[in-house]
């Protein structure tokens, strides 16, 4: 009897639900509001921040609810579950809204070095009544889920493998973990700005050096493809960005700065160290292992250290600092001109032969087309 009634109920559901829902694009959607990251870090947790999640259900005639679950999403909210959207009957226009998920819902205590997850569950279903026995059961028709994380575990400190000076730039190569969302280079000048003027071919070119403008936006130029991320605003003047001064030398590449990233910052957290860093450059591609800091001053020595930041915003300790000095680099055109090349660019209006031939070619084309037309007519 029970088996039979269950079968009938299932058949009824199978027949009726598609009829009520089929006219719609039947979906349940859960998504972070654009720009939101998927997780909370410790600072978010302590600041009791929230994340906006958009939910939508287009199954008219069903009942729909959204709740949090510490494990996999069950059919119904467990006792004590946080209800994000109480059960509601879905009308012809569906149900949609934005829910604010609190950090404390994911991890209440905001502990150190911890990763935990919670699932946001959206369920649409029906109450099915046994026509013989009268018992009522909840039948899930469709569901969706979204995972939110609490992550206070920072990435490991990257290791700067090499820094090489290029034209108004320093090219970095580094090693680091895989759980990185972006890399942040912190750099500062070491010693006085150069007064030397470069030559176009070895002595005399007006320097193309650029003075850093404290208000400008530094943009990443990662070779790994992370060029689409805006740079960071400066965070204020730094008395000590962790790079010991070693003024006087130029042309070095990859020299280890005396104090590395820890000079005077042993008691500061990575976030505090970064906050004291006046000049920053971000590489938006977390999978990149090389990139270049650009718009630097040629012949000016710089100290550089690197931080890793994960998707939750946790910041690694800095790498040891290295130094490098941007230098004049001859591109192909400079090399060509310095070796006596006469080409100055332009589109050849002086090329009399070409300018004569072009109209002649046009006339020839017209003549040939006319000939074709004549032959076709014949």
């Amino acid at each position: 009897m029970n088996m039979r009634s269950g079968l009938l109920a299932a058949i009824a559901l199978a027949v009726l639900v598609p009829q009520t829902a089929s006219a719609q694009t039947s979906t349940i959607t859960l998504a972070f509001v654009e720009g939101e990251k998927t997780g909370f870090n410790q600072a978010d947790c302590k600041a009791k921040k929230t994340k906006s999640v958009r939910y939508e259900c287009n199954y008219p005639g069903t009942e729909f609810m959204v709740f949090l679950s510490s494990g996999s999403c069950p059919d119904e909210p467990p006792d004590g579950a946080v209800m994000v959207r109480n059960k509601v009957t879905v009308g012809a226009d569906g149900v949609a809204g934005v829910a604010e998920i609190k950090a404390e819902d994911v991890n209440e205590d905001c502990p150190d070095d911890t990763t935990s997850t919670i699932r946001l569950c959206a369920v649409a279903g029906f109450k099915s009544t046994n026509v013989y026995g009268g018992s009522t059961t909840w039948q899930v028709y469709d569901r969706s889920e979204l995972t939110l994380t609490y992550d206070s575990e920072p990435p490991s400190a990257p290791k700067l493998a090499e820094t090489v000076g290029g034209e108004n730039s320093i090219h970095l190569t580094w090693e680091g973990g895989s759980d990185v969302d972006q890399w942040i280079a912190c750099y500062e000048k070491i010693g006085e700005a150069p007064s030397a003027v470069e030559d176009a071919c070895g002595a005399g070119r007006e320097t193309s050096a650029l003075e850093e403008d404290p208000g400008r936006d530094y943009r990443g130029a990662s070779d790994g493809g992370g060029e689409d991320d805006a740079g960071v605003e400066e965070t204020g003047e730094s008395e000590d960005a962790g790079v010991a001064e070693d003024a006087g030398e130029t042309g070095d590449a990859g020299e280890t700065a005396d104090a590395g990233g820890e000079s005077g910052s042993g008691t500061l957290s990575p976030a505090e160290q970064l906050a004291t860093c006046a000049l920053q450059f971000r590489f938006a591609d977390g999978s990149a292992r090389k990139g270049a800091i650009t718009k630097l001053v040629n012949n000016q020595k710089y100290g550089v250290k690197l931080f890793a930041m994960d998707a939750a915003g946790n910041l690694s300790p800095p790498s040891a600092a290295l130094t490098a000095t941007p230098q004049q680099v001859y591109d192909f055109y400079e090399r060509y001109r310095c070796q006596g090349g006469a080409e100055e660019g332009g589109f050849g209006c002086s090329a009399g032969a070409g300018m004569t031939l072009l109209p002649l070619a046009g006339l020839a084309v017209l003549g040939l087309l006319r000939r074709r037309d004549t032959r076709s007519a014949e």
Partner: protein
Amino acid sequence: MKRMVTLALVLLAPSLALGQEEILPSQESLRAGPVGASSRDWTLEFNGGRFRPRIDEEPGLTGSPYNDIFGKKSMWLFEGELDYKLFDLLGPFSLGLAGGYGVVWGRGIASSDGQPAPDTTTLSTVPLRLLAVYRFQWFNEAFGIPLVPFVKAGLAHTIWWITNGTGGVAGFGEGKALGGKWGYQLSGGLAFELNILDREAARDFDQQWGVNSVLLQVQYARLTADNFGGAGIDLSDDAWLFGLAFEF
């Protein structure tokens, strides 16, 4: 080889279909019967090859800048060409327009030690050509030999530019590394008609898309870009080009 032909037909069919009013077989094509017998007014070619511009041969140069920056690398050149048949004389005499892109990458040279620096520098070209093309199809039509010798000649204008380490156009004093050079193209080559390998697929291709024949071709080309012996950078070279041609 049959697979190659089929693959080529499948990959290139959509692009060939663009601009056509219908994809159903034309009446002319249906009447034609034998493969390749329908009218062939157009030829679309895709060619590629490598060439090394004669920059280091410019009179007055004290060094070899191309070799210093790019070493033994040649430029990669890829181009497309569309020819329109004007008349037949044992084969079509056509007028064609060709456009391509060539590029070579290298490292800048550090001023401090003269060694390669991490900064990239590139030389890019966009050759544009107006061509007269003749394909001698008599062997194929008279004896069924699927080989088509061809020659091309025409006027060329090659736009060129050089980038520096920041990716911008390089400069030197008042000069900008961006310009155009006039020249000409002379080339001769041989095409192999692939229809012979799978006549049924070729017939389908013709009926579905109006493509009469597909040819695999090689040509040896003199590509000049020196303002006909004028001063400045010389982007000329002789090169082998390989490609596919579609007659429709």
